[in-house]
């Protein structure tokens, strides 16, 4: 019989680790159990071919909360986020749209494609920033339960209403419109040039099984922009050493504070007795006891697989079943023996060091989504392609490169049948062909590649249906509705069982906020001092 722990965290994704770090630092004895023999979940970097490190899932850091980096001393444990420059959309006519860090260069480049769009960008950026400033303070707070009369819930509800009340009538209208609009309609109100709209629509569809013309996608854009608004210089960029550097630093911080991690330890059941959790049992039969169990796995995996159904209220189970996952994305990681060339780009262009894309109209994006609806991957997919090794010297030997391609759309099943290896390879080929169209000799540079469809993401990371955010970020599944109305505060119907992954408020992305917020709730329940969780930075 193993000695009991105070807390067991199921899953060593970044949220599980953030949660474990805060709890361990409050004096609790915490065990993290991870099914894979590596840690990180979707924030992971693995060397699958000698000398070259991939960011196998997530690839850019935009949301990770700086408060968490400071509280958990992640800089001391080796984490560095480095800013990058550039970005481009390659057009079918041989031209391209560049994105520059310099304000005037950016404006002039936009104006090159449509004279008024250069200035329209400033309007657009202002309006989006205004929306971010409104929503961002909600990230680092537990969402209120609108049905509760507890003083804290009333207080939080009041905070929400007060924030809303501070808006002018026009802003309120804008905000409601923004939360419900399609990104395509939203962009049409600002821009003329198709390629500019295609570029800016990207953030509205990433990780979502919606097309740029589906209502609600404007909000998704906000979710991706939110990390930047409070002047956190250096919070946006590549994690030096890949996204796995984030979870490596977290685990190092956790171990240094006395925590324990078990890998290759898949939990098969959460133990429940008399409506209370008592620990977990692993696939190999080992039992670990604790009166508090925190699941980093998504809400479906947690409540439909790890907990016996009779332990849960029927209505709750039904709502968990209804929670929308709907994977929409794939990932192709490529090791290259040399830097690819893109003849469209002028010599010396910084664009190659940023995010690159080949979808030059919103229409093409929407067509790609049509394929997803028909149950197959996009024949003309949308790529978010980056080469982190153009600025990160730690991921490949000099001259060689890691190229990360995030791909949409890619369904959880192929016409209702499971993915086959042949499907997966054909999907990978579709992606490679698209790149090669714009980069002569590209295929000859490839040393190795890893193709990941929702099947691989589910099997390996445990993301149900391969949804990268542990559940869609649509407005019906946010705030006090994430994941389930009445259970948005990281607790569950089972006493002592909590959830802390991206399925919970404020949602997906390598942000750390769900893990931290959940830790604060748990410390409150266990009457622990939580003063080591510093309050969210103010937005002035």
């Amino acid at each position: 019989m193993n000695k009991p722990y105070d807390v067991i965290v199921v899953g060593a994704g970044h949220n599980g680790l953030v949660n474990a770090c805060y709890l361990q630092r409050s004096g609790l004895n915490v065990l993290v159990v991870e099914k894979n023999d590596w840690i990180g979940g979707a924030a992971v970097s693995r060397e699958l071919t000698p000398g070259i490190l991939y960011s196998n899932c997530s690839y850019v850091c935009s949301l990770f909360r700086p408060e968490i980096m400071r509280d958990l001393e992640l800089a001391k444990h080796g984490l560095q986020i480095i800013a990058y420059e550039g970005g481009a959309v390659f057009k079918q006519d041989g031209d391209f749209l560049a994105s520059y860090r310099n304000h005037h260069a950016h404006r002039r480049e936009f104006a090159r494609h449509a004279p008024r769009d250069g200035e329209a960008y400033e309007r657009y950026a202002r309006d989006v920033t205004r929306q971010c400033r409104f929503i961002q303070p909600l990230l680092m707070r537990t969402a209120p339960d609108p049905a509760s009369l507890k003083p804290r819930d009333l207080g939080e509800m009041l905070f929400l209403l007060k924030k809303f009340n501070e808006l002018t009538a026009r802003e309120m209208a804008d905000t409601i419109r923004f939360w419900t609009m399609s990104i395509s309609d939203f962009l049409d109100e600002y821009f003329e040039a198709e390629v500019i709209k295609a570029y800016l629509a990207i953030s509205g569809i990433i990780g979502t099984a919606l097309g740029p013309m589906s209502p609600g996608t404007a909000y998704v854009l906000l979710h991706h922009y939110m990390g930047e608004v409070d002047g956190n210089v250096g919070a946006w960029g590549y994690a030096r050493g890949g996204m796995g550097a984030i979870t490596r630093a977290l685990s190092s911080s956790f171990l240094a504070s006395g925590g324990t991690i078990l890998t290759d330890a898949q939990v098969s059941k959460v133990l429940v007795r008399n409506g209370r959790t008592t620990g977990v049992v692993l696939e190999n039969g080992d039992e670990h006891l604790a009166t508090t169990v925190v699941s980093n796995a998504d809400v479906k995996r947690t409540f439909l697989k790890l907990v016996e159904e009779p332990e849960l209220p029927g209505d709750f189970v039904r709502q968990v079943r209804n929670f929308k996952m709907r994977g929409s994305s794939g990932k192709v990681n490529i090791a290259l023996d040399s830097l690819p060339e893109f003849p469209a780009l002028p010599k010396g262009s910084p664009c190659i060091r940023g995010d690159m894309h080949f979808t030059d109209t919103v229409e093409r994006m929407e067509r790609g989504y049509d394929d997803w609806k028909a149950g197959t991957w996009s024949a003309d997919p949308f790529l978010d392609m980056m080469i982190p090794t153009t600025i990160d010297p730690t991921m490949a030997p000099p001259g060689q490169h890691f190229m990360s391609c995030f791909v949409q759309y890619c369904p959880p099943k192929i016409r209702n049948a499971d993915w086959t290896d042949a499907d997966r390879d054909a999907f990978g080929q579709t992606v490679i062909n698209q790149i090669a169209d714009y980069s002569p000799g590209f295929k000859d540079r490839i040393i190795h590649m890893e193709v990941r469809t929702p099947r691989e993401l589910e099997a390996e990371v445990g993301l149900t249906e391969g949804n990268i955010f542990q559940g869609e970020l649509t407005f019906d599944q946010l705030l006090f509705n994430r994941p389930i109305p009445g259970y948005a505060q990281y607790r569950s119907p089972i006493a002592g069982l909590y959830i802390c992954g991206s399925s919970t408020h404020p949602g997906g992305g390598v942000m750390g906020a769900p893990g931290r917020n959940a830790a604060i709730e748990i410390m409150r329940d266990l009457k622990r001092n939580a003063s080591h969780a510093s309050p969210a930075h103010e937005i002035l």
Partner: protein
Amino acid sequence: MSMKAAGAASEFWRNPQWKSPFHDRIEALMTERHWYDWAGYAAPEIIDDAELEYFAIRSTAALFDISPMVKYSISGPDAEQFLNHLTLRDVSKLKAGRVQYTAWCDDDGQVLDDGTLFRFDDSTFRLCCQERHLPWLMDTAFDYDVTVREETDEIAGLALQGPTSAALLRDAGIDVSGLKPFQIAVLPKSLGRGHISRTGFTGDLGYELFVDRKSAGALWDHLWQHGTLRGLRAIGYHALNIARIEAGFIVANADFVTSETALRSNRPRLPDEIGLDWMVDLTKPHFNGKRAIERSRQSKSRREVLVGLEIEGNEPAQHAIVYHAKRREVGVVTAGIWSPTAKRNIALACVDARYETGDNLWVEIYALRELRYHKLMKRARIVERPFIKLPRRTLTPPGDF
């Protein structure tokens, strides 16, 4: 699909800061090498000595490059109607060959910018301003037969300001003896296609010259050559800023926040809140922001006012907090200098409208002296703008100082 190589037009990252047509001439004179960014152009802060540059404005003649100023060409049969819809003042009263200092607002009556409107003939105008407004102008132009085009980079501009400027121009073969303030004349053909107007940002006798870009260098050389005997000096923004504060002029996004750039919805201002109430012509047909301005006047909902302050002592109060009775915070100084001509400590400030006439105003100045702050609480009096009034500014024909 073709894989053609990119054109040089898209290499904006190489030179994000553009050069004005006078860049090389200014650079050759510059000993301080102190540039700043003006709307995407490199502009001189100081050429060689800010104090001497200031006294050139007030005692001889000063040449300041205004090419980076954002310029829109507005023309067509409906140009007057369109501009009347856009701006606060009555454009039908602006005669051909004259300039109007004006401002324009969004539908909430919040100021988008102020600037100067040049009318060359019935249907041809130029709007000069600080911020860029193409989307706003094009949206407003929707129903009018009018063409709006940015021409900032095509038109070179020079401000020639100071007591000897008229004499200098006469020497240079440009007759301005009959030119009244805000009047425009065509430049002699030999100097290129362009105009001269009796306008400026210094509150002194002065002119502004605009020519097509290719004539810019020759115009500069021509003025420079005739400037030797008239004490001409090239100046940077530092000197100009002192003169413009003395003259009581405001600068968008320095003395007020324009409504298209503000992130915080309570920052933009109505014309009445920044001292531009006199521009608003409620007798003309609809214009952008009219209803909101009327409503605010009816409900007396003006929150702030922009005032001139005279502050005791000689320590500039730039960005100081304004207090009532030394305790209640009621505003902020947006621009504060020691005026070399008036010999007074002057400032522009945004102040809570309830204290518009109030006395008992104070400013808190933090004066840093060798790494120690002197915290000063100084009495401030609301005074008339401009802080200095020079008769030579409006005298026609101009004096030969």
